[in-house]
């Protein structure tokens, strides 16, 4: 059963062949984000690479604590330094964001790359009006006057489907429901027509019915605005609905990456297999069910110690001594499909390219 049959959005779910000729917008290259804590260095993200093309939707999935959100925060350089420290490269339209000055970085945040957060209830400032919070990005990045910014804020509220935008724009966040607030967050994120939208669990904190509405809204807006999306989620139903490509993260590393159909049909890494094994039905969040990941037995390893072998070794059902001693590298196992597992078979179509 193919995913596209269910969600009725075949275009988005088509696996892209190697010949994807859209420009690479963002390239994360061996990103490391570590934190100094009282009892050791937490290697929250340790060598993650992926890319996003213009207009593409990439999903980053994994359990909580696997480094998804830290990766997202790292892209916008929202990691406080100290205690955090980043290494590697994050190239956005060819420029390495890690090398930009604070001022240059600020002109990118909310303008070319914007972000939606998980908690709409707490992500809006309780003492500033909705209009002011939407208008702030416009005044910052597009030099609008107060009046222009407010007019445009009303327009944005209408775009994200908030009734009576002229009245709401003068209200405070506590006067809005959770779903409304997430719409406001989306309005803030899209106000400056960003090229990349990072959505960190945008629907997790919402009611199931609202989740579907917000996802629909994001999909519509993506088509009108044309932004690429990095969608961070642990909800595989959401992934199946909106993503084109999927990066699976575990313990601060990328363990698998593939186009969405390929991944769902043919997961290579035991961790991905575990995740998918726990999903009852794809696309079910539209029909009102939640599809949360069921815990895979075992403990996530502490990221404060170096792990000599495979990061998943402590929980893997088919672990061997080799896994505990030698870390597997990411390797192309099928066309456009990479995974980091010693025992995932390499398909014949790519076996000639195994080099590393």
């Amino acid at each position, binding site marked *: 059963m193919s995913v596209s049959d269910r969600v009725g959005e075949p275009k988005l779910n088509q696996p892209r062949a190697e010949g994807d000729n859209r420009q690479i917008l963002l390239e994360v290259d061996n990103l*490391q984000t570590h934190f100094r804590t009282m009892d050791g260095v937490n290697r929250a993200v*340790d060598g993650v690479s992926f890319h996003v093309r213009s207009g593409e939707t990439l999903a980053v999935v994994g359990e909580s604590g696997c480094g998804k959100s830290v990766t997202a925060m790292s892209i916008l350089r929202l990691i406080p330094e100290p205690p955090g420290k980043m290494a590697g490269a994050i190239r956005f339209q060819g420029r390495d964001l890690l090398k930009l000055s604070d001022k240059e970085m600020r002109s990118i945040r909310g303008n070319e790359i914007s972000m939606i957060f998980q908690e709409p209830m707490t992500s809006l400032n309780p003492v500033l009006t909705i209009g002011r919070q939407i208008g702030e990005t416009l005044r910052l990045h597009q030099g609008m006057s107060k009046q222009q910014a407010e007019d445009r804020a009303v327009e944005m509220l209408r775009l994200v489907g908030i009734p009576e935008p002229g009245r709401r724009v003068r209200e405070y966040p506590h006067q809005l429901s959770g779903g409304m607030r997430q719409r406001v967050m989306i309005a803030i994120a899209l106000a400056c027509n960003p090229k990349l939208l990072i959505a960190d669990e945008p629907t997790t904190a919402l009611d199931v019915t609202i989740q579907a509405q917000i996802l629909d809204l994001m999909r519509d807006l993506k088509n009108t605005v044309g932004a690429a999306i990095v969608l961070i989620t642990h909800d595989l139903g959401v992934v199946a609905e909106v993503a084109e490509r999927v990066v699976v993260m575990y313990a601060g590393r990328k363990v698998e990456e593939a186009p969405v159909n390929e991944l769902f049909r043919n997961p290579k890494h035991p961790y991905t297999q575990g995740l998918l094994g726990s999903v009852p039905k794809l696309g079910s969040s539209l029909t009102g069910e939640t599809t949360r990941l069921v815990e895979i037995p075992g403990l996530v390893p502490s990221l404060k110690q170096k792990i000599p072998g495979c990061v998943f070794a402590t929980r893997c059902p088919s672990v061997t001594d080799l896994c505990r001693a030698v870390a597997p*590298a990411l390797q192309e196992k099928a066309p456009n499909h990479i995974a980091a597992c*010693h025992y995932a078979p390499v398909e014949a179509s790519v076996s000639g390219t195994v080099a590393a």
Partner: protein
Amino acid sequence: MSASNLPSGIQIPPGLAVATPQPDILSNVKPRRGVIGFLRRYPTIAIGGTLLLIMLIIAVFAPLFWTVDPTALAPARRTREPSAMYWFGTDMLGRDVYSRVLYGARVSLLVGFSVAFFSSIVGLAIGLLSGFNRLADSIIMRIMDGMMSIPSILLAIALMALTRGSVQNVILAITIAEIPRVSRLVRGVVLSLREQPYVEAAVASGTPTISIIFKHILPNTLAPITVQATFICAAAMITEAILSFIGAGTPPIIPSWGNIMAEGRALWQVKPYIVFFPAIFLSITVLAVNLLGDGLRDAIDPRLAKKL
């Protein structure tokens, strides 16, 4: 990873894709445990504790530190500058300022510790009563509100105006002025603890109030009260000095730091050392207690930092 690091018996099959280890970007931190780790984490406790200990030793063993009788008058040798003979000089009555300052530590520490102790005990009792009895609470808190509306130094001054100056009366006056603060703190802790599931369960299962207090409430109030007590101790030492300084504290015959400064006041423009030596000792002692309190607060409960 080189093969030599591998546990014996493991062979890397040819052609296996092996990940290159990621470099360290932060130097490693060694977690420290034990006394050293504790002191590194809470340096204020170490500094405050040491300073306070020194002051305590000075106070207790004042006669051993080459002091003379702090009350011995010597009009012929008055207002001498500090010298090898009189380390801190002499005051306008010829008394040795060094000896008076050292003995002054006794008064200051006695007042500080006593006020901290008594106001904690009484405040604990009032706070518990008020936290457990609605009727008592409404009356007590009205009175506490009223008392807290009188700035505590003024309250202490007013109480001192009613009595003769003596160390006991100073302790009593400052204690009364500090009680409302402790009562409020204890009451707040009691009220929030009473809503905890385990306390509610104990109440529901018919546990007598007394045993609830001793089992669940008291142990949880001790930490915030200890921290509060150190701050009260510091405040009391300052209040004592202020009371003596304006002439409403300990009788002038007693060498307290406030008294020494009060006596040096008239001459301070020409003989500033009479005022400055007790001032330095007072400041260091209060600083020590405050540092200790800050450290304790952080060590016991970081959340408490917001309440105090």
